């Protein structure tokens, strides 16, 4: 079933929308949740919540890219769950590793207040990358895949990917500095 047909099911309040979403994008959403939570049980719970959240947001939304839209919901829910688990001294996955890496791009002395500027700077930064660099960066920090899997999906060695990500973080840091975001 195509995206537009699945979205039409959501708009028609047809519960088949959830079954079709799971059939088409369940694997992607589970992959995202598993990367963050490192727990099969939590992953299933998170993906189930994704379909409910999608049900609540369509209508009125009609996302142009349903797969990314659903994966973004999963990512958001999973990171929230990870925060909760961390507070409870549980949890694992790629989030702490990615946070450590991203800490190289932003300091802590001045809290980031203008998220709109941050998002625009990120988008400009990403649009300026080569296709392979953008894919690598987002496989790592959007999908939170391991460096190895991100590298494999980009046709690179893990060592090359690590070096490339290091350079990309340095470039992002410079881009943020230029926009006045303190590091």
């Amino acid at each position, binding site marked *: 079933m*195509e995206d537009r047909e699945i979205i039409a099911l959501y708009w028609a309040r047809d519960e088949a929308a959830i079954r079709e979403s799971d059939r088409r*994008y369940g*694997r*992607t959403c589970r*992959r995202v949740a598993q990367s963050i939570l490192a727990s099969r049980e939590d992953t299933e719970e998170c993906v189930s919540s994704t379909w409910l959240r999608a049900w609540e947001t369509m209508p009125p939304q009609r*996302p*142009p*890219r*349903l*797969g*990314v839209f659903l*994966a*973004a919901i999963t990512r*958001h829910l999973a*990171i929230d769950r990870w925060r909760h688990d961390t507070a409870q001294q549980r949890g694992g996955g790629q*989030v702490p590793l*990615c*946070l*450590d890496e*991203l*800490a190289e*791009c*932003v*300091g*802590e002395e001045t*809290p*980031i207040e203008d*998220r709109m500027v*941050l*998002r625009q700077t*990120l*988008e400009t930064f*990403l*649009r300026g*990358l*080569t*296709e392979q*660099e*953008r*894919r690598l960066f*987002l*496989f790592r*920090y*959007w*999908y939170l895949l*391991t460096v*190895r*899997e991100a*590298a*494999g*999906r980009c*046709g690179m*060695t*893990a*060592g*090359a990917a*690590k*070096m*490339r990500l290091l*350079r990309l973080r340095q470039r992002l840091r410079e881009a943020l500095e230029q926009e006045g975001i303190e590091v």
Partner: protein
Amino acid sequence: MKNNEILLETIGEIDPALVPPLRRRTHPAVWAAAAAALIALAVTLPHMGKTASASPYDRLPQTSLATRYAGETPLDPTLLPGTAGFEGMMAYDIAELQTPTPWDTAAITALPVFRERACITEGSAMGMVLCLSETDMIQLADDTAAALGIAVTKTETTYLRDFVQGGYTDEQLASVYSVEATCEDGTQIAVYGDGKICITFDGLALPDKYHFTYDTTTPAEADAVLAYLTDRYASLLGYGHAAWYSFADRTFDGVESRHYYAYDQSSDPVEALLAKELTCTQFAPDDAGRLLCIWLQDPYCTADYLGDYPIVTAAEAEARLLEGAYQSSVPEGYLKGGTVSAEDIAWQTLVYREANGTLMPFYQFYVTLDTSAFVMPERLQNFGIFYVPAVQEDLLT
């Protein structure tokens, strides 16, 4: 909330158009029309290094090396950013990084050079080769699936215009970046405009006796895995005499990261070099030790033969390296004493790299770097990668 948490959260809120799909969306393919076009387009020209006929690439028109001549067009050896290889590779011993060189470098006096037919040299798509037509790419996906014994059910095409902004010609914007094919069993086949093919499985388990990982597989175990994979996928690879190798670099923690390759073996030194560098296959495991993906490549489909160019000797290349006539992304501050010295050259080999749209040979040097700036285990070494054009200087611009 900490700033790095805000950054991670904000990355999740960027324009969805920028986010690459993890699992591809699909649209119905126009198979009937494509099939008719494929029959009309099916032209097969033999080229060196291919002794079998089952490779998915074999039905595409390919550059032939049957007639060899001396190259005369001056070459620009400038490596584009992002194509200059790795800045550094870490290992306890250089032997961990060395790959087989099934040729006698001293026996090679000239090497073929190729010009990519459609390489973008500016903007964010710099270095991207978008040569193949959508029809060719659908054919490659279909033939790849057939070699795997499965069938493509749906495809989706991505054009350059789908993810870049201004600064490109209409023809470039209409170029096909990729065709993503979904097969009946869920296998994904991505064919790119430069002819590279990535087959992604949903974690394909290998028989229990094989140990296929990044960090805990020994060279002997890797050899066994590669023997199995090249045999299992023989009809996909299309190699006449398959050979394979693995090597392992390490992370800053000293953990191994092993890489797995296969290529078509030849007793001819030039053919052996071309096969290892240009038409090799890479196998990648997932973190559970299953087969994640296979990468295939064959630039003979996208590049024209410019001729054979005389090359300098390894000793001459080393002399140029020591004079500073090299290309590298390694910061000079990482070099011992700020320059490359002969005693820091750990290894050198011949490779092919794309320089401003030209596929040409380079000497690749592994140079031991100053590790005092890095936090890493004792005895772990960092090797910087440096390139010197192999083609004689009078034929370079």
